């Protein structure tokens, strides 16, 4: 039984994500107020809401880039109570299960596209250079960037960089992918290439949580729409239902602002 087989879901059933009573404060300032969210494996959850609602912070709590003050995080097979001490082995296991894509791509500028994808595989999964490179080339092909393997990120467009970043995260065979406004830094047309890759990933059954302002994507691709405002989840459910008939006044106001502009 190898780690990658577990990560591929061949042996253990996927458990999805359970986040319970997550709270986060910076001093006096509350960012997340007792937020809970359950995500079924193989589903896509879109997280929308006004700026400052806590969407990104909440997403970053899932792989502990932000450390919540209290609550329970259950990701696939791993349970972590971030209020207490988290040992580094649990943290490493958690992060191996969760892939993340950032608004600003965060590729390593001093490495080629191929190296960006291969280097973490070698270090985190202990793959040989040959194995890692082979997997990297497969993934580059999958995101339509086979010919960019030897280019450095600086020579790639934003859309290409983001697709390389997605390949880098996928290379570690995560059970869950987190997307933090993956198209916000991109021109609308360039964003489409990234959304296309994400649609494909969703169709392949990847468990995804996406913080986004792309309402079309949220409506068409996500199984669950989660609306956050003022440090809380104010509404969640079927995306089409919420978009056509929001129950909360705050949701209505937000949707009017983003849909009817």
């Amino acid at each position, binding site marked *: 039984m190898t780690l990658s087989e577990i990560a591929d879901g061949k042996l253990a059933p996927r458990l999805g994500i359970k986040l319970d009573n997550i709270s986060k404060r910076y001093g006096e300032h509350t960012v997340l107020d007792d937020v809970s969210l359950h995500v079924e494996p193989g589903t896509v959850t879109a997280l929308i809401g006004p700026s400052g609602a806590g969407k990104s912070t909440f997403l970053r709590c899932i*792989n502990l*880039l932000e450390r919540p003050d209290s609550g329970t995080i259950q990701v696939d097979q791993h349970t972590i109570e971030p209020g207490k001490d988290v040992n580094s082995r649990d943290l*490493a296991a958690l*992060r*191996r299960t*969760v*892939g*993340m894509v*950032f608004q*600003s*791509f*965060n*590729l*390593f*500028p*001093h490495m080629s596209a191929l190296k960006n994808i291969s*280097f*973490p595989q070698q*270090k*985190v999964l202990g793959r040989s250079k040959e194995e890692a490179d082979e997997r990297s080339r497969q993934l580059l092909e999958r995101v339509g960037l086979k010919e960019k393997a030897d280019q450095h990120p*600086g020579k790639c467009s934003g859309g290409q960089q983001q697709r390389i*970043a997605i390949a*880098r*995260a996928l290379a*570690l065979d995560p059970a869950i992918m987190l997307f933090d406004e993956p198209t916000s830094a991109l021109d609308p047309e360039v964003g489409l290439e990234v959304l296309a890759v994400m649609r494909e990933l969703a169709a392949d059954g990847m468990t995804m949580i996406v913080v986004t302002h792309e309402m079309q994507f949220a409506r068409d691709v996500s199984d669950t729409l989660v609306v956050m405002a003022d440090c809380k989840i104010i509404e969640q459910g079927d995306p089409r239902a919420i978009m056509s008939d929001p129950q909360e006044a705050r949701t209505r106001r937000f949707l009017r602002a983003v849909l009817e502009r």
Partner: protein
Amino acid sequence: MTWLTEWACYLPQLMSGLGVSLLIAGISIFFGYPLGLVLSLMVTAKNLAVRTLGLAVVEIGRGAPALVILYLFYYGLPKFGIAFESITAACLALTWNSAAYSSEIMRAGLQSVARGQLEASNALGLSQRDTFFRVVMPQGMRSAIPGLMGVAIQMFQGTSLAYGIAVPELMKTAYNIGSQDFNYLQIFTLAGLCYAVISMPATWITVFFEKRMARHT
């Protein structure tokens, strides 16, 4: 005798002095840079004792004139039974000096690495060690290169201070030659030219690197 013929006859002697100067500069840079890296990490360490020690070494190294440190090593330490050859004392003092200056440049370089790079490394599950050596350091050192080259030039010129403790480097050699037949003007001009011939191309290379960096960022 014209200046040129005088220079021609002084030059061989002066070259041995230049060799000593380059040796001292080379040693103080070779040991100063790695030490500077360690200091830059100590200064940003969480542990208060480590941080304080690092700060003390850096601030003394930058705050005290190199000549003072040089004298302390050569004339001061024998009080405690620690005596160095003059050239060793010069190397030690200038190493401290270059470590202190380069540590500040490296610290700035390391801190200039975008936060997103650390977040990406953490999210990928890279160890702290791999994150530092493979992600942060290569990028931070890149932006520190022009500054570090500046320190190297400064160190080379700083070797002239070793004259003060009778190290037979370029300056001391020039002085000795000058005191034989009192051609101070000619010999010090030649010594100055020797420093310039090394320093000026080094400065040009630094500027070239700075421009290249600016283009890439």
